[in-house]
């Protein structure tokens, strides 16, 4: 059977580089995520993805608008920015998982091949859900935000859960299988070169994170209100 993508390892190196670059930008943006809920608090994008109730997203967004003007605009632009950058992050993330699954499928028994190819193509659905989730959140970021109806909220929750289940299943299955191939010695030597490139990208990312983390930005500190 013809491979779905020729030279998937090479593409994986590119998509991983884009993934790490966008992740780096998004982590920088996340440093400005504050809201005012009695006191100034930090929040994360995960809080928006897994709201406890339909009221939680509007409450969180109202908390951002309740911040003093300079802090509010910083947080709003960082949050909107992260959601837009996420549109670049998505093809890198789901593309990387897709390529990993395709690589694994190539080495599998016929049943395993079908399983991993399905898993690869399911990443497109996860990508679609993620894009819809971002659209929903971007639409919610306004001062007069109201809670969604229970139906819409439930649909949003299911979409987020489905996205996470699909992408985590893809990552876990593909990485576990790859680990098995490497441990059992059933791999092509040239794939190690790509593995080295991927590890190198990871090291550059960690170093960049450490350097950026050391730089104290005055506005990182929670404002006194």
């Amino acid at each position: 059977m013809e491979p779905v993508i020729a030279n998937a390892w090479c593409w994986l190196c590119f998509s991983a580089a884009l993934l790490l670059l966008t992740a780096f930008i998004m982590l920088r943006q996340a440093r400005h995520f504050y809201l005012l809920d009695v006191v100034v608090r930090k929040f994360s994008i995960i809080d928006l993805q897994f709201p406890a109730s339909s009221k939680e997203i509007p409450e969180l967004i109202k908390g951002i608008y309740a911040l003093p003007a300079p802090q509010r605009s910083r947080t709003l632009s960082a949050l909107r920015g992260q959601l837009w950058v996420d549109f670049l992050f998505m093809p890198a993330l789901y593309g990387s998982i897709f390529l990993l699954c395709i690589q694994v499928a190539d080495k599998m028994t016929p049943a395993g091949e079908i399983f991993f190819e399905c898993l690869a193509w399911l990443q497109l659905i996860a990508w679609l859900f993620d894009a819809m989730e971002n659209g929903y959140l971007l639409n919610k970021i306004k001062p007069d935000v109201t809670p969604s109806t229970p139906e819409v909220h439930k649909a949003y929750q299911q979409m987020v859960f489905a996205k996470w289940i699909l992408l985590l299943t893809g990552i876990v299955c593909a990485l576990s299988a790859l680990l098995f191939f490497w441990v059992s010695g059933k791999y092509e030597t040239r794939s190690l070169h790509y593995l080295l490139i991927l590890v190198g990208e990871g090291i550059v990312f960690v170093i960049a994170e450490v350097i950026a983390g050391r730089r104290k930005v005055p506005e990182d500190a929670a404002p006194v209100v």
Partner: protein
Amino acid sequence: MPAKNPVKLTVSDFIHNRVVIEELESLKKTFDPAASGGKPLIVSDVLDAEGHQYVNLVQKGGGVFGIALVGYTYILEEMGIRFLRLAGTSAGAINTALMTVIKNKSDKKSAEVLQAICDLDFFSLVDGHPAARTLIKNFITRKNYIDKAKNKLLVVLAAFALLIAGDVVLVGLSSKYPALYVWTGICFILSGFLSLVLGIGISYVIDLFKRLKNSGYGINPGDVFYDWIKRLLLENQVATVSDLNRKAAICPALQLRVPNQSGLEELKGDVTFIASELVTQNKIQFPAMCSLFRTDVDTLSPAGFIRASMSIPLFFESYMINDIPADDIRIKDAWKKFFGITQPPSTARFVDGGILSNFPISIFFNANVTVPRLPSFGIDLDDSKPADKQENAFSWSLTGYFGRMFNTIRNYYDKDFLLKNEVYQRGVGKVDLSSDQYNWLNFFLSDKDKIDMFVLGAKAACEFLRTFDWDTYKNDRTDLQIQLKK
């Protein structure tokens, strides 16, 4: 199949309960001078034109045990007793607030309070993260939940260890027996999945702790409670602190059963909610101490006082009052007057008043009155389990040790007052809630539990009224006052 409609609890379910009716009838017979062996019920010298007797009432905090407080006050009201000054902490503050704002002082209010209870989904007050809600629910409603959870975690960890061992063994064997190749792959994938589950579990716990920290160490925001109590106050025309004070103070024309040198002067109603303030580490009496926080007290929400009073630490987020004009001379004077503090804080952070004074009967102590005109009644909620009452000083679990330490600290403030002024103890009725069936944090109460608690409160009130002797109480309090003046 027709959909099941759960039968909603009604006020009638409480007040027409067989035990409550029997107890009340028996009590009325005891205090019916027309019946054989009957005597009039006399609990106070302060009366209104309709013959209601007035007392001061303090209600103890105790989470959902607050329903028993309603049972108790229901009987007092049915026996013609009304409340001039009211005070309470936590759950006691909630009942105190409702009894203050509903209708007029001379009216019965229990039916309205019960209606509010019937309309409230108690579980909605646990408005934290769904995972936290589930954990709290399981922890409170399931016996040995922690042990079972520990066992499950051990099973998962053992499975993880077995899978890792399986990976190593199968990799070695599959090179010799190619038939094992597929099984080795599956074992690796399963190990990956279990790693993921453990990773998600650990991240989730870390995330929950982060949320806990970000929310000021409170699992539930308490917003549902705040909205609920605010709505009830508004429905009873209480929107501001002035409205609350006005409503608490309005009394019908009062008269004395027997002459008293203090007369009726300065005899007026008020209300007090107790909260603990953590920034300056003080006991705050709302609304009397509102001037500590605002120059215009009407900018504070009365619902906030009750929310502050019931902020069970960790269970609910602290209640905050921000933007205190700490440089304003009036605010400075207020802090100096109440606490001797010269530099007021700009933010006050409140937790449950019960950590300092869960039964604030001492606030009714009046050194200026020698012969009391009315008694100070108190409703004590006794939820100490048999194990807590044991005098064994050794066989304690760590939680039992900390529990006893905390109880010693939090109860001693009020206990000390009652030990030194023993006569006040005679106005206190005790509701026995020590059964294992009840837990003060069980916001998942069944309707039956709610009714049972109400009945226990009602029975305790009946027992109290049968034994309370106003003349003895009055004489003993007079003696106490004379001794103190010497």
